[in-house]
């Protein structure tokens, strides 16, 4: 005899241990099954895009750090590409190599955090997080050598970076690169073959690839659906054309596929950094002729990079003054949430949290 149940609407967040910050969901459950869900955004909306209109191009770098605060370096990188395209600045080769090294290190750090919190959402409370934070601390130490800050780095400037890496940085980076594949092996031993993880993640949160493309989803989520779309290959920026790496793909488009793509991407990032270290050339880290107050000609540009969470784009409009007229950020975390309702409806409560964790969002970037 089927049991009659009544739908109940529950509020989850903005203060909740598994909402990755201040995300909020209104969910209607029928028994244990999600009937409908409505995400509520804006609990960290700080008006970054409006503040950009009152700051110079270099001053905005500090605000771009604080948008996706687990991937500050890539945020800087995307903004610098847009400014250079707008103002017609040719960056120094050494500065570009340093940027690539920093950005790939940041990709590893971001994926580490993504995996740690994904496992935390699965119920592995604390343990995987402690493992991933151990390696993240080492990456943050490298950042501290580069620029003196751990999280909000403000490392990059139009034309390159603001400071060359110190002598101690290179041996420290080498040790880290030698250790990192072993760390990834360790996670794989712990997590990838784990029975509980497999049962909970395989087959849950499935989305077809066409739906993902139609909903503008990008990054590891798209590659987990078997779509070979990585801007580092498809639209190479900086010197990504000069390094060789594979794009990890998975076909299933479920939560496990997203996890495994992130794990593989960390290995590829290590490869990329090795090649950058081999090819880096001496010289200035930024051209001397770039002025402090940049006055680009009037016009608009759109520059995008492959951030750790997806396509990170900056749309800048200049009116010829020292501050951008309009600065719009195409935030991958925000747009990847378009499909959230479709991904949750029909699944159980526990799968809801796992699916939400597998998207790997960052609230600073969702709300900006």
């Amino acid at each position: 005899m089927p049991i009659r149940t009544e739908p109940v609407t529950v509020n989850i967040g903005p203060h909740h241990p598994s909402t990755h910050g201040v995300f909020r969901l209104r969910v209607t459950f029928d028994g244990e099954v999600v009937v409908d869900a409505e995400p509520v955004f804006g609990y960290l909306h700080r008006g970054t895009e409006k503040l950009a209109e009152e700051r110079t191009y270099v001053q905005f770098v500090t605000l771009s750090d604080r948008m996706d605060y687990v991937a500050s370096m890539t945020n800087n990188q995307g903004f610098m590409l847009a400014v250079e395209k707008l103002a017609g600045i040719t960056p120094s080769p050494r500065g570009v190599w340093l940027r690539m090294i920093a950005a790939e290190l940041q990709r590893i750090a971001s994926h580490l955090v993504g995996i740690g919190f994904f496992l935390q959402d699965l119920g592995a409370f604390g343990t995987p997080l402690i493992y991933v934070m151990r390696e993240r601390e080492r990456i943050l130490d490298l950042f501290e050598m580069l620029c003196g800050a751990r999280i909000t780095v403000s490392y990059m400037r139009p034309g390159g970076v603001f400071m060359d890496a110190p002598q101690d940085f290179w041996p420290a980076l080498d040790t880290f690169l030698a250790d990192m594949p072993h760390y990834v092996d360790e996670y794989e031993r712990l997590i990838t073959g784990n029975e509980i993880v497999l049962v909970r993640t395989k087959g849950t949160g499935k989305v077809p690839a066409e739906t993902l493309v139609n909903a503008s989803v990008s990054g590891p989520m798209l590659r987990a659906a078997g779509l070979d779309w990585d801007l580092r290959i498809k639209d190479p920026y900086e010197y990504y054309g000069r390094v060789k790496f594979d794009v990890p793909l998975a076909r299933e488009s479920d939560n496990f596929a997203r996890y495994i793509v992130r794990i593989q991407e960390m290995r590829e990032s290590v490869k990329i950094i090795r090649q950058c270290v081999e090819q880096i050339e001496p010289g200035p880290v930024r051209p001397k002729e770039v002025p402090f107050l940049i006055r680009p000609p009037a016009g608009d540009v759109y520059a995008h990079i492959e951030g750790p969470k997806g396509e990170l784009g900056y749309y800048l409009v200049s009116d010829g003054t020292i501050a951008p007229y309009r600065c719009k950020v195409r935030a991958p975390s925000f747009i990847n949430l378009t499909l959230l309702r479709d991904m949750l409806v029909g699944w159980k409560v526990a799968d809801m949290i796992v699916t939400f964790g597998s998207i790997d969002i960052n609230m600073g970037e969702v709300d900006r």
Partner: protein
Amino acid sequence: MVEHEPIALTPTPDNPLFRQTYELDRSEGAVINQMRATHIEQFPDPLIEVPAEFRRSIFVGSIDALLNWGRKSSVFPLMMGLACCSFEMIASAMSRWDLSRFGMEVFRASPRQADLMIVSGTVTWKMAPVVRRLYDQMAEPRWVISQGVCATSGGPYYESYSVVPGVNKIIPVDVYVPGCPPRPDALIYGIMQLHEKIKRYSLAGRAAGRE
């Protein structure tokens, strides 16, 4: 005030949940707007007053010492990450900085079980009623650390249209930790300053953290 039909939050295929929650959004927005209009003044810093006749009392003094020692050695923080600073808060709880040396490794998800609220990051006006409610739900004695300049004064977002210029307009704050974000060492130093503050509390004085 317009009377509204009670909202039936039961989605049907042709009437999804987001179409039914507009009134709910409006009433929440009214709360935020009211809070924005009324919370202009800062809360004064919580002071510790011990009446003169109790200061030299051996009985009260020894009980105070015991009680404060117990309180300071097991401060349970609330697991509340708001923005960038939350990652430094998490890092301070992880193996390198190891907050559990100070008896506070257990981050509680429920405010009912927590003693310390670490406001880790920017507080927006949309979040302000939530922060206030969480603070009200915490049992006394309770303490608040404002981590980072965003929580302390608005920081880089001071000019923004949606950011609370200082969380002390919403709740009283015991310890301010500067930095953007402060390193875990700085946060731990702030926590130790809070320990010093807890040590000075007295049975006879006002309860901790009360407005």
